[in-house]
């Protein structure tokens, strides 16, 4: 301690007056120092009369406080008050307690310093850690980690369990709700499919095609009502739905457009008989709610009504050669003279009693589904046209209509040009054209098939084209002989079946137009078949080496054929000895004659004209061949055998 330099301690008293507050402009308000009586009161409060004159801290605190007062007051009156106090020693200077504290602190510090220096030497004193029976050092961190991990996992598990609990609760709630099928959620589902709007306190929907471009004046509104007839006590039925739709009464049930073609002339008594037969309702998607099926059926009824209204309007307005008859729910027209096309709207309500449905004069197979489908397509096309960009006015001030029609004024179109823009065909005309074409096509197919089954020689093949139009189809007809298809293929006909006519293009370039009469096609094919036989002989002669002496497609000799013309050919054998003459007609069949050389005929009249015997080698009289007794599967085969029999072999 003696070598230590003295430490200077400077002590400064705090400011005389304490700051009470600092104002916003920086001015400080000071606490007014206590007056003498106030000070006395304060000091008196601090006297602990129960305690003796012991602790220096109290004195130090008291001395500090008095030091201020000393500085401030300094009068003897204070002295008297202060003498009353037990602990106070007026002889000591004010900083005495402070000095004592500091001195004791210094003592302590010196002791500590001494101890530390001795301990450092480790000669007389050592530091020894307090022995604890602690865990082995290695295990310590691991178990700690384990415990800490366990705790944290437990905490995470708690959170997860809480969350899981919440989820299961919500799931069970949902299931309960599903079972109950809340009205609002069902309404939401309904809204996803149909347009709804709120009018007053009613919810109305729109099932018409007006937003898709239809101009039909039916309102097509349905009402959504709450299904309240549920008995909560009983078990909720499986198909319970809290929502019900009420459709307009004239759209109830199901409807379809029945298009059929009949051959017989219309019986006057039959007109107007409602030929309903209840078509089974199209199967709705499983799982779709009952209101969906109901609304879809009602929409279908509306569309059928629109189609029929459009058709009947056109049937009355459009002038045609044979007027269309519109009776109640049926439109009857005659596309061809002996043909009757009837389009009827069959609307069957859902009532159990339907007295008229049992009398069905026409069978269900009569109905042409294709045409019904086409009617639906055509009306939808018409809807789209009203909304298409060609119709929408550009500029906005122009009147509605086709874009080119708007230009017809400023560009001074004359009547021809105007007519070419306007699509003059209505729905009815289109469907009649399609029906005509279907009829022609089916009858052509039937004709070809009947010929093919009836006649075996030659064979007729038909290759129908896959790509057809609603108004045009085509078929390639080949007439061949069995076994000789490569040789005799000169008759190939391309038939283009149109709306009213059949156009035949022959392989040799001829174009023939046949009318809708069924007999014409049959006659034509029969005549072609007969021509084929003669053509086949010609081709065969080429192959066999026989010479064609004459050939004619339409001979003017012999009996007159009622169908087409007979054709004939004459061929001569390679060495000239024999000649075969064939005449084939559609009705008269085939007649084959063979010409022999004169020296082979026994019953020739001898005459004096021919002097030389060399003339006997020329061909002479004809002899008919009994063709039906000839060996051979078909005509060409027989002909080949005949030819080969008549050409001598060189062996």
């Amino acid at each position, binding site marked *: 301690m003696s070598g230590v330099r003295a430490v200077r301690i400077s002590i400064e008293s705090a400011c005389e007056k304490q700051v009470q507050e600092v104002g916003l402009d920086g001015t400080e308000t000071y606490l007014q120092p206590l007056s003498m009586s106030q000070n006395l009161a304060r000091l008196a409060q601090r006297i602990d009369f129960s305690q003796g004159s012991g602790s220096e801290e109290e004195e130090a605190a008291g001395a500090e406080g008095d030091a201020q007062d000393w500085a401030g007051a300094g009068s003897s009156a204070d002295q008297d008050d202060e003498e009353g106090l037990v602990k106070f020693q007026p002889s000591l200077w004010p900083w005495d307690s402070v000095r004592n504290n500091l001195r004791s602190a210094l003592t302590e510090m010196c002791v500590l310093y001494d101890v530390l220096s001795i301990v450092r030497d480790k000669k007389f004193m050592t530091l020894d850690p307090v022995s604890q029976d602690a865990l082995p050092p290695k295990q310590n961190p691991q178990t700690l980690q384990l415990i800490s991990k366990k705790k944290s996992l437990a905490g995470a598990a708690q959170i997860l369990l809480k969350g899981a609990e919440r989820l299961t609760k919500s799931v069970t709630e949902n299931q309960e709700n599903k079972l109950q099928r809340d009205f609002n959620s069902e309404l939401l589902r309904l809204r996803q499919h149909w347009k709804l709007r709120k009018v007053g306190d009613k919810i109305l929907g729109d099932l018409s095609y007006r937003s898709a471009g239809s101009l039909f004046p039916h309102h097509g509104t349905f009402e959504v009502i709450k299904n309240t007839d549920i008995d909560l006590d009983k078990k909720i039925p499986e198909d319970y739905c809290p929502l019900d739709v009420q459709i307009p009464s004239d759209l109830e049930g199901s409807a379809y457009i029945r298009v059929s073609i009949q051959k017989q002339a219309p019986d006057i008594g039959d007109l107007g008989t409602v030929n309903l037969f209840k078509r089974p309702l199209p199967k709705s998607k499983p799982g779709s709610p009952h209101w969906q099926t109901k609304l879809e059926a009602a929409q279908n009824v509306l569309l059928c009504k629109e189609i029929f209204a459009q058709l009947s309007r056109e049937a009355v307005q459009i002038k045609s050669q044979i007027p269309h008859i519109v009776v109640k729910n049926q439109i009857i027209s005659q596309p061809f003279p002996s043909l009757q096309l009837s389009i009827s709207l069959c609307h069957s309500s859902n009532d159990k009693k339907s007295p008229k449905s049992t009398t069905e004069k026409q069978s269900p197979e009569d109905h042409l589904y294709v045409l019904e489908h086409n009617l639906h397509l055509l009306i939808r096309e018409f809807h789209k046209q009203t909304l298409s960009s060609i119709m929408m006015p550009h500029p906005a001030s122009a009147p509605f209509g086709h874009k080119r*029609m*708007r230009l*017809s*004024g*400023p560009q*001074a179109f*004359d009547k021809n040009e*105007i007519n070419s823009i306007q699509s003059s065909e209505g729905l009815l005309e289109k469907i009649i054209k399609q029906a005509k074409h279907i009829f022609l096509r089916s009858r052509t197919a039937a004709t070809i098939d009947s010929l093919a089954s009836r006649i075996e020689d030659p064979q007729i093949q038909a290759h129908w084209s896959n790509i057809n139009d609603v108004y045009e189809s085509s078929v390639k007809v080949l007439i061949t002989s069995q076994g000789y298809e490569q040789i005799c293929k000169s008759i190939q006909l391309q038939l283009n079946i149109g709306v009213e006519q059949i156009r035949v293009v022959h392989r040799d370039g001829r174009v023939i137009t046949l009318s809708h009469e069924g007999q014409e096609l049959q006659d034509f094919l029969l005549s072609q078949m007969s021509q084929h036989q003669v053509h086949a002989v010609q081709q065969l002669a080429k192959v066999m080496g026989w010479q064609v002496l004459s050939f004619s497609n339409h001979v003017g000799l012999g009996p007159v054929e009622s169908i087409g013309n007979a054709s004939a050919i004459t061929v001569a054998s390679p060495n000239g000895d024999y000649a075969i003459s064939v005449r084939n007609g559609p009705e008269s069949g085939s007649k084959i004659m063979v010409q022999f050389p004169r020296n082979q005929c026994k019953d020739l009249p001898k005459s004096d004209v021919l002097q030389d015997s060399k003339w006997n080698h020329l061909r002479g009289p004809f002899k008919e061949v009994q063709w039906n007794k000839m060996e051979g599967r078909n005509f060409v085969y027989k002909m080949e055998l005949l030819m080969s029999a008549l050409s001598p072999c060189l062996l």
Partner: protein
Amino acid sequence: MGVTCVSQMPVAEGKSVQQTVELLTRKLEMLGAEKQGTFCVDCETYHTAASTLGSQGQAGKLMYVMHNSEYPLSCFALFENGPCLVADTNFDVLMVKLKGFFQSAKASKIETRGTRYQYCDFLVKVGTVTMGPSARGISVEVEYGPCVVASDCWSLLLEFLQSFLGSHTPGAPAVFGSRHDAVYSPADTMVQYMELFNKIRKQQQDGVIDEARNSSSRLK
């Protein structure tokens, strides 16, 4: 739309307008033309309103609004030597709205109505020009469909006109002269009609003046 020539057929001596028309139509039918309905071309005159004339005191322009049944959805508006506007039929409604700027001249509606004949590529229209209740003249219009350039087919047209008009065949219309090789348009037809109507109106006016003069001279 082909090249068209519009001309006036003078009324034959001693005959009425109707009789002359009948003569012509009979000639056409003998030639082999087939009747194909009727036609009508009408013309209304408007002049610019006095309020819009301006301080220079320029003369009001005359505007003719014409319709032709050959172009049923169009309306033609033309000035005397100026442009011709081809518009759609809403133009008539527009004219009503423009009443402040264009005023209809009194008793100015002139029209020609008649029959339409088709003779192969030629379309012949013979019509009676009427102003009010009275017939004032005869208009003959011949259109040659296949050609659209005036200079190419004028000679053919002339020959055809000569075949049934005889000595009354007109000369080449003024519109051909200005745009010989340009494509012929319906507006040119309407210009020709306008000129025809103006000619007839002037004839009529001259006729009235002459009559007035004669009557006044007689009175004197």
